[in-house]
């Protein structure tokens, strides 16, 4: 009798211990720019990850009730620190996969390291060319400019009859230069004439020289590849110099920010941007996300947050499909994973880039807010 009791007790203990084992959180790692001048890209990612994880865990977690946990490392925009972060997350914290880093430059340094250790790494905000070419463990959920910009420029040509443009781009930043390369190629393919190409520094504040030259050439539109700081300055100064409203500014992803209207004000009306996502996209999944994000953080989410949010859900699906966090299985599951998120349907190409560009819309700035181009409010 006593032996039986002990037996039951032991079994219960083992059962509880096993149950504890299976409730162990699944550790993910993330390298983001959380401090320094670029943290406005990293912090939305962090916030969105946290929001998604909170929701997923509340709904029961993955793999039979195991919650997701995430460890953040700040790279402060510094390549060395990003590399140190990756090594710590893998070597010391033994995470199942890594999210980020925020900047393409960092990914070029970190990717090979992670790839060598055969751990999946997913860039949610890195849009430069060649990211996924780093290795078979490198995934990218950020919609690259090469998918968005052609849609934008095509729309400009077909709907606005744009035939000749001036192109301006920041030539000292990998992101803006990369986007410019896409613009150049697309404009050539579309047969749109480039009257002149002007450059500036990402940190510049005076663009009057280039804009005066542009104005004099009478373009139909001015295509700009810049971050929002310089971009809004360009638009503002352009209008101050008397560039007519009929000459629209067309931007790459850097323009895709509420800051544009904040800084450039009225001058920004009529600006066109292509975006894989926008705030007022009117489907249930998106609206729920926007509301939850705003409730939790007091601010509207931006595109970086949206992409990060979707990625986390994608990861949850992949882990469930893989049935474990073993790297090989996880990688395969990711490759096949599908998700319908706030950005629309998502799956990976064979090259581990986003396969679906159907969600790309062209936005137009009107009265301080973006709305879908061609739609009257």
């Amino acid at each position: 009798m006593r032996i039986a009791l002990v037996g039951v007790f032991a079994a219960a203990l083992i059962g509880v211990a096993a149950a504890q084992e299976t409730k162990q959180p699944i550790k993910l790692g993330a390298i983001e720019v959380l401090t320094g001048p670029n943290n406005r890209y990293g912090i939305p990612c962090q916030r969105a990850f946290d929001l998604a994880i909170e929701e997923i865990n509340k709904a029961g977690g993955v793999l039979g009730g195991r919650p997701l946990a995430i460890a953040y490392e700040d790279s402060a925009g510094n390549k060395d620190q990003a590399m140190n972060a990756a090594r710590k997350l893998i070597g010391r914290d033994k995470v199942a996969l890594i999210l980020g880093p925020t900047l393409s430059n960092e990914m070029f340094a970190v990717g090979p390291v992670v790839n060598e250790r055969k751990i999946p790494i997913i860039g949610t905000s890195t849009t430069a060319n060649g990211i996924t070419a780093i290795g078979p463990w490198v995934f990218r959920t950020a919609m690259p400019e090469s998918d968005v910009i052609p849609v934008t420029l095509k729309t400009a040509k077909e709907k606005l009859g744009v035939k000749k443009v001036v192109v301006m781009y920041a030539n000292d930043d990998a992101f803006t230069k990369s986007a410019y390369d896409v613009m150049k190629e697309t404009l050539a393919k579309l047969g749109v004439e480039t009257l002149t190409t002007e450059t500036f520094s990402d940190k510049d504040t005076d663009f009057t020289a280039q804009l005066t030259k542009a104005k004099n050439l009478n373009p139909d539109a001015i295509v700009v590849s810049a971050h929002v700081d310089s971009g809004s300055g360009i638009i503002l100064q352009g209008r101050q110099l008397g560039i007519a409203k009929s000459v629209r500014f067309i931007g790459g992803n850097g323009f895709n920010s509420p800051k544009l209207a904040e800084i450039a004000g009225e001058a920004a009306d009529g600006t066109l941007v292509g975006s894989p996502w926008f705030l007022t996209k009117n489907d249930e999944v998106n609206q729920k996300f926007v509301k939850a994000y705003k409730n939790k953080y007091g601010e509207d989410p931006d595109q970086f947050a949206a992409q990060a949010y979707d990625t986390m859900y994608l990861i949850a699906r992949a882990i469930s499909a893989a049935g474990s966090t073993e790297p090989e299985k996880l990688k395969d599951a990711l490759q096949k994973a599908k998700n319908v998120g706030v950005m629309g349907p998502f799956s990976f190409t064979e090259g581990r880039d986003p396969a679906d560009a159907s969600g790309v819309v062209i936005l137009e700035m009107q009265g301080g807010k973006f709305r879908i181009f061609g739609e009257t409010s």
Partner: protein
Amino acid sequence: MLVQQLVNGFVLGATYALFALGFTMMFGVLGVINLTYGVYFALGAFAALWASKAIGLSVWLALPFGAAVAGCIAVLVDTLLLTRLRRAKAPELSSLMVTIGATLFLYTGLSVIYGTEVRRFAADFAPSAAFEIAGVRVVATQALIVVAALLMAAALIWIVRGTKVGLAVRGVAENPDAAALMGVNGALITHLVSFMSGALGGAAGVLIGLNFNAIQPFMGENMMLRGFAVIIIGGLGDLRGALIAGFLLGIIEVLTAGYFASAAKDLIAFALLVLTLWIRPVGLFGRAAAKRA
């Protein structure tokens, strides 16, 4: 188009000159590479921004407010950090090092408080009228900057050349020990110069932030390197030089971008800097400085 470009260059030059006035004063008189000058520039802009939002100061009041705040912090930094080193006759490099540390501390502090995104003054903060004369467009804030640069330079030059205080400042700049022997209160003069240069930097920050609508914690960093070019070309410590070199550089940069290649715009400033140092290191108006120990 040429006239418009010249106007553009003139305005850009005014911003450079404005930045350089305080910078050259700090450099020339106090004899130290003070990298914190860029921070005073940003602090002035942020202080004025805060004032315009929190207490609703108009631009005419926020400007001196911003300048004063920057000036006070400059004196604080100088007292806490640089005076100690001066008294201990520490190597020049230590002062440089300390300003590097202080700059890091202050910039990061600013970005912790305010975040790193760019902001602007309210759209109605300053007169926004635009004038068009013979096909050339000028906005009110641009005119404001040019006038401010000229006025401040004139005022400073008058102070330094025409008043007793100015004489004392020049004396301390030439030879602190001799000046002390002559009864000049070196410490007071140093504080005065610190305040004035900090205030000038702050004022420049407000005006430039106003004109370009780009206020962010690191705004001074970007100006610093150009600032070096301007004060070297103009001559270290020479106010006239800073003014003229500033305008000159602005015009050259704009003409290079407008008529040659915009990619060369940045390059030209540094090329001129290096050429000046190779050919005539004292710059346009500098006098060969006495060897500093």
